């Protein structure tokens, strides 16, 4: 039993290589990330240049994915859209992680009034869907990437706080934590040495899932005009612009939609794979 666990622990990399959904998810995520990074230095065309003469061209050697109704190169827009998508969801997850995890850890370490207050505040924020927050904040930040990041980020805070709280609370009753207290260690030190490391894998898995939800949310906000504004390309806005042309050029709606689906699926598969590979319950208690 312990021998198999030891083997399992050592061969994490080997198990990752044998995990098809993890590999697929990681590959897709890497491709999207690489595409986004590449767009900083190179895109086939400038995605913001309008060229009405070349509008609605089908895919060709010069325009691999064709052009839109303003003659912009669709592939270039998709590549830049990946940057928007990734930037918004990464910052939003960062906000959620940065605020939520410490809050959840604090609530678990200090239960009592502090814990209660933190968790009540969390429940409260949870009542505001990201879209509502975006609507409320629109005039403070103005419609744009910042608004989307903040709105999705605020929405992420209680997600991570609840996760951290829920994971930390049972850890605090574990005997190894009591042993650390008997060893004279305080709440802060125990949180750093024992609580956080033991829930890190859960946090990582949740972060991937929130990343994929962030991609979806960013697309939705951009679609209704609460996200990035023209001329910055965004998958959501591309869909908005393609909507009236569905009958004429369905390609314009298909391409950004598929980009979203593939990216979100990649991140979800990555998250599921990480969960299988890192889940402390599977790794330890079984």
């Amino acid at each position: 039993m312990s021998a198999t666990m030891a083997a399992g622990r050592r061969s994490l990399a080997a198990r990752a290589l044998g995990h098809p959904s993890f590999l697929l998810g990681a590959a897709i995520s890497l491709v999207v990330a690489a595409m986004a990074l590449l767009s900083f230095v190179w895109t086939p065309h400038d995605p913001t240049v309008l060229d009405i003469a070349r509008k609605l061209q089908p895919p060709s050697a010069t325009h691999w994915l064709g052009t839109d109704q303003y003659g912009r190169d669709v592939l270039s827009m998709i590549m830049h859209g990946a940057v928007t998508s990734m930037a918004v969801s990464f910052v939003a997850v960062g906000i959620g992680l940065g605020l939520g995890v410490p809050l959840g850890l604090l609530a678990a370490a200090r239960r009592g009034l502090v814990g209660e207050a933190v968790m009540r505040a969390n429940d409260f924020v949870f009542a505001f869907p990201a879209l509502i927050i975006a609507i409320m904040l629109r005039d403070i930040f103005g419609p744009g990437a910042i608004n989307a990041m903040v709105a999705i980020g605020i929405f992420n805070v209680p997600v991570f706080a609840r996760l951290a709280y829920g994971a930390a609370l049972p850890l605090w009753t574990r005997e190894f934590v009591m042993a650390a207290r008997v060893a004279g260690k305080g709440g802060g030190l125990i949180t750093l040495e024992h609580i956080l490391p033991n829930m890190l894998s859960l946090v990582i898995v949740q972060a991937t899932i929130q990343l994929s939800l962030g991609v979806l949310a960013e697309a939705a906000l951009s679609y209704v005009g609460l996200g990035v504004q023209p001329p910055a390309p965004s998958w959501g806005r591309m869909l908005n612009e393609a909507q009236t042309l569905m009958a004429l050029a369905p390609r314009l709606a298909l391409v950004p939609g598929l980009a979203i689906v593939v990216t979100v699926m990649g991140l979800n598969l990555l998250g599921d794979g990480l969960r299988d590979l890192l889940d402390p319950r599977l790794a330890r208690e079984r």
Partner: protein
Amino acid sequence: MLVYLAKRLASLAATLVIASVVIFAVMEVLPGDPAEIMLGTNARPDTLAALRADFGLDRPAPERYAAWVAGFVQGDLGRSYTYSVPVGELVAQRLWVSLPLAAISLLLTVLIAVPVGALAAARRNGPADVGIMAATQVGIAVPNFWFAMLLVFVFAVSLRLLPAGGFPGWGAGLWPAGRSLILPAVALALPQASILARVMRSSLIDALGEDYVRTARAKGLSRSEVVRRHALRNALIPVLTIMGLQFSFLLAGTIIIENVFFLPGLGRLVFQAITQRDLIVVKSIVMLLVASVVIVNFLVEVAYAAVDPRLRRRA
């Protein structure tokens, strides 16, 4: 049970009060003067002042907050800056589109997710399970508004089976009105159902691993009898939790989907209000939406107690 309900109701009320303060405060710090927007920037100062007085915009913030809340509780949501009609009437009209849409899609979500998830769990690792899991993996990744566009393209534009958008009003009859809600409801329901089906599957698998399932098997129940009589109800408890959480996604989804289908619901209203700086409308709708999320989560907790006797206590 009564004590529990009383406690939950008190915290529900507290949440709503805090929410109203937050919403009011956030909307207050917004730049832009509604009076100016309504009359244009070159309106005469005395006209502007008269309009502000008319809408009560010249009174101090706490007073306006009190008036807003008092009105809200009585169902008087104030008067729209742009439409100059009572917000209550506007909202009520639109609610008759949004509410049925949300209800139908919630119903669809559950009707799809529970059997599909249960089937996947019962046939764990079999071809049905693998297929369902792959389908839900895609379903989760599909943005509902894009899915809506595809549905319009297939069923409205190509096949001409259903309307591409618009809403004839309930006055036009149950079928013509209901018909125009089918595609939006399906677009909303499928991605949500994908999530819920996965929850259903894993929670049923967990339930099937419990000791009481083994006890029931030792009594002579077959595999499927155990699922039906013992595991299913236990598995529904986590599903209920997720349904409560999904409601807020559903609301956000409704607002967006209404824009795809040009449905005159709350979603359209709120976006029109935003562009027209009709703050009182935005404020009231936001409050309404937040209140409904809070109330639905309260109802979910009550439903828990109905399902789980451990939360119910003998009087």
